[in-house]
């Protein structure tokens, strides 16, 4: 009796220890990523050579006026000082003011980011659900026609760029059939159904890539896990196929698919630029494209830094989940 309690105690210790160690490793990667990413983002102004003076003064710019305006925006400070004061206010949730109209970027971005995040989130959900279903079915029926059909399907959808999928979806569901609105957005406060009707086509458009990659990685991960000796052992001991699948195979074979998910999320967020153009949504991707074309550097930096934060947080979550599901990944295996 006492041995069992000791064992569970040791296992529990090992598990928490593994998680904190996995988290430590993840932080060791993502803290530098955050600082380098924000540094590159902030360096974009220097790189582009743009200044609020050209935007606001236009042709009437004299050197004195330009210098005065740049001093007003704090641009006469040394680069690292500017970076540090920008970063500290970003960490306090203040993304600064737009060069074009002097309005707060944080408040302009907040409403738009919700649109893009709900689309990316729904796309992720679609990608995970369908990807897991296809990958599992293909692995369970490997080398049969079902497997070949799924592999063929994932190959086809992986070569379809998201804007092509988006156009096809608009052409079929919105224009030809007229089942769903082709453009625009309705906030969730006006009802879940209209909200969903507006975002599910764009979400589907950017999810294809994720579906294909998750399905492929899960299939090969599961097939690899089925070949392991402990699975043979489980079969020999007479365990049921369901228990073998969920306890032995899925847990050990799911790693690559989860890792891919962490890497796909930036694409889902980035894909917003294209889908928002197709579906006429005023999300953060459109804000980024418009601001960049106007030369509104702080607004672009605001979008980019928000997306970096979201990606870093998402990857921390995925890696934590990964360590919890497959403890071996904490050891970097």
């Amino acid at each position, binding site marked *: 009796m006492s041995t069992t309690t000791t064992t569970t105690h040791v296992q529990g210790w090992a598990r928490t220890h593994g998680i904190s160690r996995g988290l430590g490793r993840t932080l060791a990667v993502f803290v530098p990523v955050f600082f380098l990413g924000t540094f590159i983002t902030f360096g*974009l102004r220097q790189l582009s050579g*743009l200044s609020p003076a050209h935007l606001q003064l236009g042709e009437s710019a004299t050197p004195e006026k330009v210098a005065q305006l740049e001093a007003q925006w704090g641009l006469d400070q040394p680069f690292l000082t500017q970076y540090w004061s920008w970063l500290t206010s970003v960490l306090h949730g203040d993304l600064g003011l737009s060069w074009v109209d002097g309005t707060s970027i944080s408040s302009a971005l907040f409403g738009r980011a919700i649109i893009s995040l709900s689309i990316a989130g729904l796309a992720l959900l679609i990608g995970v659900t369908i990807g897991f279903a296809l990958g599992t079915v293909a692995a369970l029926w490997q080398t049969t026609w079902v497997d070949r059909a799924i592999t063929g399907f994932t190959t086809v959808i992986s070569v379809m*760029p998201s804007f092509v999928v988006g156009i096809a979806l608009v052409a079929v569901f919105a224009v030809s059939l007229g089942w769903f609105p082709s453009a625009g957005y309705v906030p969730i406060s006006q009802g879940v159904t209209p909200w969903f009707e507006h975002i599910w086509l764009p979400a589907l458009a950017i999810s294809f890539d994720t579906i294909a990659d998750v399905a492929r990685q899960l299939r090969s991960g599961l097939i690899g896990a089925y070949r392991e000796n402990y699975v043979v052992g489980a079969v020999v001991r007479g365990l049921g196929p369901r228990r073998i699948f969920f306890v032995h195979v899925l847990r050990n074979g799911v790693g690559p698919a989860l890792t891919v998910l962490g890497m796909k999320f930036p694409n889902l967020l*980035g894909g917003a630029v294209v889908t928002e153009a197709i579906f006429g949504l005023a999300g953060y991707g459109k804000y*980024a494209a418009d601001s960049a074309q106007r030369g509104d550097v702080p607004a672009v930096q605001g979008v980019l830094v928000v997306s970096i934060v979201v990606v870093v947080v998402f990857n921390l979550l995925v890696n934590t989940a990964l360590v919890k599901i497959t403890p071996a990944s904490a050891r970097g295996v």
Partner: protein
Amino acid sequence: MLGRIARLPSGRLGLVILLGVLFLAAFGPALAPYDPLEGGDAVLAGPSSAHWIGTDYLGRDVLSRILAGSTVSVLGAVQVALIALVVGAVPGILSVYLGRSFEWLSLRLVDTLIALPFLVFAVAVTALLGNGIPQAMFTVGVLVSPVFYRVSRAAALTVSRSQYVESALLSGASVGWVVRKHVWAKVLPPLSIALATTMGAGFVVVSSLTFLGIGVQPPAPTWGGVLASELMYLSYQPFAPLVPTLLIMVTVWAFNLLADAIRDVTGDAGRALSRPAPVAADATA
């Protein structure tokens, strides 16, 4: 190696399609029956003997616009991949030889590039830097370079731990000689796979950018731009986007076929690429 690729059915198909696409890129503008920029009277006309795939909202011949736009669309992908190759592979190989601090910094930079939401950055940076073709190619090239960094670094690491490299270094060979003589041969197969995949991916990105009017602005013809202008009139011509769409898809597919064929031909050397590399994988390396 081309011969061995051509002996595989999928490799042959990929090569044939890509040759066709290259032909379009080289001679497309000359083959265009009409001026791609000049509109006509027939606006939004369907396919006819005069206009094989119809006209757009300004009466411009869509076939001519697709043909004239093929150079930018296809060469853009090639340029992106070549820039990415240089920006990625050189530090990738050097990271094994230039000491701890360079290794750490380059690894973190690559992690950062991977974590950036790709398209938003491509659009934003290109537009901020002046919204031209060189800016677009440079930005996208840098953003996709981590693939080359990883592949070349992995191969270089394997070689650098082998005994023949050790013995070469012990007998007084310089690092440059070892890289040229031994490392390069091991890095080449995975790099060529990455090159084919990146051209496919770069092609999608270039099409997406031109679709948004970034890098190449309208009225200059591009495949993405043709798609964008047809999207606005989808309710009049629901099937008009079909031709540029199919062109884009088939080209991407051909690049992927080629990558798979190289992987099959070179055997184990390319295996590493098909596995996903976790962002944190190199943390302690």
